[in-house]
Structures are given as C-alpha cells and as structure tokens.
C-alpha cells in the first residue's frame, strides 16, 4: 500500500490496463449467458464503468507523476514494470521476452506524451462508450460490441503505455485486430465484412515495414527500449538529405507502418471503407485514437526522426500530399461518414506534415484537439443517422437544424473547430502546424502553401457538409421527415461534453500541449518561426472556405452542378478517389489473381509439380511392369538364377587380375 500512496504512477498504469481487459474477459466469457438473461444493457454499463474507472486512475497516476519535477523543463517519466517488491527502483523487472542478448521486460513508460494519449484514449473513449449505450440500444449483439470495445481500449492503452517497441507492437496489432472485428461488426452485410478484411490486409502491409524497422532498430541500437533509443539518438550524427544510413532506413521502415495504421498515401484506402462499422466505432477507432497511433509513434521516436533529414522530409511530403488529396476527395463525397473519413485522412496528413517538419509538439497538439472535434463530428453524424433511420446520404437530408437542435448545435461547434474558426481548438493546433512547416528548410514555404490551401479546402468541405445536412429544406421523402427525432440523452451528453472539449482543448492558459510535451522530444531548442502574416492568413483562408461553401450551397445552389459539368474530368477523378482503389483492384485482380491462375496454378502447379509427382509414379510403374516378369513362379528358374548369380560373383572374385 505504501507504494500505491507514495508512487501511484508505478502501480496504477497496470491497473488502468487491467480494467478494460477484465471487462473484455467477463463480457467475452459470459456473453452468451448475459444475452440469455436479457442483461445486455448491464453489459454496456460494465464496459462504460471499466473505461471511466481507467480514466480516473490514469488521471490520478499522471497527477502524481507531474508532481515529481521541480521545473517545467524536466522530463518527468516513470517506467513501471512488474516485479517484486513493487516500487523498489533496484528490483529486477519481470522479463517478458528473454532470448539471447535480447531482454524485453514487461515495462511501461509513463511520461507527458503517453499521459496525454492515455487521457485522450480513456477520456474520449469513455464518452464514446456512454454514447454507444444509446446508439446500440436496439442491437441484438451489443454484448459482443462492448466486449470488442473494451478489448480495443486495452490494446490502445498498451500501445501508448508500452515501454518498448515490441510491447507497443502488441498493442499496435491488437488495435488492428479490434478495428477489423468492429468494422465487420455487422458481418452479415457483405460490404462490412469486406471492409474489415480490406482494413486488416492493408494494415498488414504496413506492419511488415514496422517489424522490419524494429528488427533493424535492435540490430543498430542493441535495444528496443523507447527511453534508451530516444535518449541515445541525440548522439547520432544527423543524416542528410539523400543519405541512406541506418537511422534513415529504420525511420522509413517504421513510417511504412505508420502509413498503414494512420491511413497515409499509399495505404490510406482502408479508412474510408472502415465507415461500414458502427458510427461510435468510427469515432473512437477511426478518428480519435487508433489512426493516430502512427503519429504517436513518430512523435515518440522524435529524436530518431530528427536524426534523419531524408525520413523527416518523406514524412512531411507524404503528410502534405495526403492532406491535400483527401481534402479534395472529401469535397465531392455524398455520404456523411465518408466526408468525415476523408477529413480524418486529411487531418492525419496535417499531423504528419507537422511531425516531418520537426514540429512534433504541434503534431501531437493537433492529434489532441482532433480527437475531440472529430469524435464530436462522428458522434454527431451518428446522431443524424440515428435520427434519419439509417440514411447516410446528405443529398436526402437538409433542414435538420430545427428538428434535432442539440445535435446540430454541437455539430456546428465541431465544424467550426475543424474549419479553423478562431477561439476554437482546431484553429490553434492548425496554426501551430502551419507555423511548424517553416522549420522544414527549403521545402518549408511549399509545404506551408499546401497546408494553407488544404486548410481552406477543409473549411469548404466541412461547411458544405453542415449546410447540406442541417440547413435549407428537407430533401428526403415525407415518411423519413416524419421519422426524424432527437437522440436520447445518453448520446447527447457525450456530444455536449465533446463540444466543450472542442472549444477549450486549444487554450494555452488551460493546457499548453506543445510546452507540456517539449521535454519528451529531447530536441535542441528550435527557433520559433513567428511570421506576422501567418495568423491572419490562416484566418482568411478558413473564412474564405466557409464563405464559399456557404454561398455555393445556399444562395447559388446551381453553381456546384455547373462546376461539375464544366470540370467533368476533375470531378470524375475526385469521385473515383484518384483511382487508388481501382489501381489496387486492377493490380490485385490482374497481376495477383491472374498470375496465380495462369502462372502458378496452370503452369507451375499443374504442368510442373503435378507432372513431376505423377511422372515419378508412372516411371516406377512402367519399370516394375517389366521387372516383375522375372518372378515366373517356376521354382527351378529361381534356382537357376541363384546358381548363375553365384557363378557370376565367384567368377568375378576368382578372375585373375
């Protein structure tokens, strides 16, 4: 008990991990009997309870951790590990993997970065759990749903709390598994199970890079401990652009994993399809937490990425390209969740853009604010879909503002936050990113330009979404209009809390995320790039985007169609999502399936392997057919052969040499 009171941060993180896991185990083991006894709602309460309790425990342990340092610049971190006696710094941590020179303890890492992420995961996570109580109230299988949700929370916490790369990787794979399970939650729907498989397969491609990166990191640094890697990275010689040293290779391989998990070009194709899952899942996994794992990893290894200009540049360029590409596609989507999905891809691109430019603080800052407003927007869209009785097409919505005012109001706050309206969280974090791009050297101005333009596009497509959904006249049929109703309180309260979060998460005086995180990144003090015109420019771009969309979709509603007919080629490229899916499909069906069928099956298997196997059998058969004639059944024939053989052998032996 002593340790618990004096150093709660040594013990509590394990409890934080254990609670959702325990919830999952109970729900998974007793799911059937819970369902039989009609206690499915109780299962939901249990799941919510574990996550809320985990949030409180996490807050307690982080509070005690932050009380450690005297100055703000001190890195205050703890590496809790299982072992006895608890809390004794001299004890040997319980080994988890011990092979040859590789010693991996089951140790966690609690520092400002993982603290922040833990609070986001458990905080936003518990709101989404509560929301799910209302959203999934009529689903038959909600015990299974909540057990998956708990399992996801456990793995996500393991991902952010893991003290070494393999432990982080376990969480990384675990959230991938839960993502697959939850995307395909309504597995009777073909498109849902297909989307789940797609997400899983695309993520495997990225994970291959992650594994290779981990192996190479161990080979190069001799350790997989996150603290060891990052604290030693400062002594490495910085690798210049175009130089492919070991740090660059490790960073690029790990970034391949990040592109898979965080939906960056070219592995972004799974995230829009992941919208087949229940909407709270989209909010939790595919907006607020799991998809930001890649950003978290890059930020976690910031000193390493800082050591390679090439890798940082690749991260920044891929991020900027993804941000721009996804924002343009979002402009033409008509499914409310697809717009938000592409918006998420785009915002993740922004985060990588910042990380690649060295503004890791800004990247995680945007991750933090994005978790609030994007979860809010997804949950809001869930509320809209709930109100519309399952309709997701914004062309059949409109005028919902008066019918579902709470949803509409919170959705408006989320829209304003992501669009970059001043005094809302998104404005501050996006401004930090744009300022950070100037740290990228010669490429900086270009990246800043792309970032600014994409910020304008963001404001445009989000305003378009809001206007089409909530303003104007209802465009659905009469029956649908009659059905529209506000969601239950269990859904509205999380919306309101997230709306508050979306407003205040960016305020300096409340929580200074970049300053809070600065010690973690162990980077040399960078000169802040304060450009006087940046703030007004960002503001102008956001307002221009909002105003354009507002005018186009209210007063001049015939203009978008005219633009579509005028720029048919562009429009088709956008609706085809730049053809990534088509290209991958063509590759898969033509090269892989065709190659398997024509080459591997017909050429290699049928005519090579089968022929060799059958041929050897036929050869033995043909030879035996002739040889067996020797066995004539005439006993004296055998005797003659024996004699002949004996004479032959004796003759050979006695032959004079």
């Amino acid at each position, binding site marked *: 008990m002593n340790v618990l009171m004096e150093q709660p941060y040594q013990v509590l993180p394990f409890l934080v991990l254990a609670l959702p896991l325990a919830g999952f185990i109970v729900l998974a083991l007793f799911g059937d009997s819970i369902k039989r006894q009609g206690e499915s709602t109780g299962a939901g309460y249990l799941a919510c309870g574990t996550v809320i309790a985990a949030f409180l425990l996490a807050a307690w342990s982080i509070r005690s951790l932050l009380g450690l340092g005297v100055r703000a610049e001190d890195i205050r971190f703890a590496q809790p590990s299982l072992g006895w006696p608890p809390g004794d710094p001299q004890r040997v941590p319980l080994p988890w993997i011990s092979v040859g020179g590789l010693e991996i303890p089951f140790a966690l890492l609690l520092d400002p970065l993982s603290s922040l992420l833990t609070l986001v995961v458990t905080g936003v996570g518990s709101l989404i759990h509560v929301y799910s109580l209302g959203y999934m109230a009529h689903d038959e299988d909600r015990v299974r749903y909540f057990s998956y949700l708990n399992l996801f929370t456990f793995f996500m916490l393991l991902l952010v709390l893991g003290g070494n790369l393999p432990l982080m990787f376990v969480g990384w794979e675990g959230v991938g598994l839960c993502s697959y399970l939850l995307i395909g939650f309504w597995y009777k729907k073909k498109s849902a199970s297909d989307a789940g498989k797609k997400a899983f397969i695309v993520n495997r491609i990225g994970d291959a890079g992650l594994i290779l990166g981990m192996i190479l990191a161990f080979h190069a640094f001799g350790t997989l401990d996150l603290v060891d890697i990052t604290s030693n990275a400062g002594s490495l010689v910085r690798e210049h652009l175009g130089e492919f040293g070991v740090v660059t290779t490790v960073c690029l391989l790990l970034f391949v994993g990040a592109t898979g998990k965080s939906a960056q070009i070219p592995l972004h194709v799974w995230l829009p399809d992941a919208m087949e899952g229940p909407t709270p899942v989209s909010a939790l996994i595919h907006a607020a937490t799991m998809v930001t794992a890649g950003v978290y990893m890059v930020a976690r290894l910031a000193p390493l990425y800082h050591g390679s200009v090439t890798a940082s540049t690749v991260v920044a360029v891929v991020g900027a390209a993804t941000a721009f590409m996804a924002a343009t596609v979002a402009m033409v989507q008509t499914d409310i969740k697809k717009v938000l999905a592409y918006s998420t891809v785009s915002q993740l691109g922004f985060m990588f853009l910042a990380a690649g430019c060295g503004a890791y603080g800004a990247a995680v800052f945007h991750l933090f604010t994005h978790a609030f407003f994007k979860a809010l927007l997804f949950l809001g869209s869930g509320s809209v879909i709930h109100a519309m009785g399952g309709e997701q097409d914004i062309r059949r919505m409109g005028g919902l503002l008066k019918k579902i005012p709470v949803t509409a109001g919170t959705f408006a706050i989320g829209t304003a936050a992501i669009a970059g309206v001043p005094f809302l969280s998104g404005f501050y974090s996006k401004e930090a990113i744009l300022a950070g791009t100037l740290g990228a050297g010669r490429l900086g101005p270009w990246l800043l330009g792309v970032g600014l333009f994409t910020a304008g596009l963001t404001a445009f497509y989000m305003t378009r979404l809001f206007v089409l959904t909530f303003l104007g006249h209802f465009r659905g049929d009469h029956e649908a209009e009659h059905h529209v109703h506000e969601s239950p309180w269990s859904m509205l309260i999380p919306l309101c809390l997230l709306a508050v979060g979306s407003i205040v998460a960016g305020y300096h005086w409340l929580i200074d995320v970049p300053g809070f995180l600065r010690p973690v990144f162990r980077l040399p003090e960078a000169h802040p790039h304060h450009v006087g015109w940046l703030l007004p420019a960002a503001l102008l771009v956001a307002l221009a985007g909002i105003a354009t969309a507002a005018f186009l979709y209210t007063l001049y509603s015939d203009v978008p169609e005219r633009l579509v007919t005028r720029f048919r080629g562009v429009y088709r490229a956008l609706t085809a999502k730049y053809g990534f899916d088509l290209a991958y499909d063509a590759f898969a069906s033509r090269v892989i399936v065709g190659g398997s069928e024509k080459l591997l099956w017909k050429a290699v298997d049928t005519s090579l392997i089968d022929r060799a196997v059958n041929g050897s059998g036929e050869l033995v058969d043909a030879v035996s057919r002739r040889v*067996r*004639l020797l*066995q*004539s*059944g*005439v*006993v*004296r024939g055998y*005797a*003659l052969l024996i*004699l002949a053989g004996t004479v032959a052998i004796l003759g050979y032996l006695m032959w004079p040499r």
Partner: protein
Amino acid sequence: MTPDRLVQSALLLSLALFVIGAVGVFLRRNVITVFMCVELMLNAVNLSFVAFSRALGTLDAQVLVFFVLTVAAAEAAVGLAIIIAIHRHRDTLDLDAFNLMKW
C-alpha cells in the same frame, strides 16, 4: 597314399557330389528328390571343408562344418514340414505344379 593325394581325391569327390546334387536340383521334378539333392550339395561342401582343414592343419573349417550340419538339420525340419503341408493341400509333389506365386 600321400596326404596331398588324399586331399586332392577328397576335393574331387566333393566336386562330384556337388555337381550331382546341382544337376538333381535342376532336373528332378519331385520335391523330395530336389530336397535330398540340396542335402547332397551341403554335404559336398562339408567334405571340402574337412579336406581343407586337413590340408591346412587347422580346426576352423571343421567348426564351420558343425554350423552347416546344424543349419541343415533345421532346414530339413522346416523343409519337410513345408513339403507335407503342400502335399496335403495340392495332392502332388510335382515341383512344376507349384507356380501360383508369380506376377
């Protein structure tokens, strides 16, 4: 008779017995006869062993004779048993009639 001549005569007798036995095995059709011819060949070999033993002045070959006698006795027991079994089954002792075990 000198010892050399004695050995030579014994070897010639052994050769004659062996050839008689071998010819009998190939030419006779009665199983019992063939069997006896095989015994004859064995004894021809025994005779040559004893002759060599005498010529070389060692007992090694005589030890081998005992082995051959033992094996021949065992073989005679098994062989006669097989012959009786076949005779009960096929009512004949003609060697050429026993040709079922073939391709």
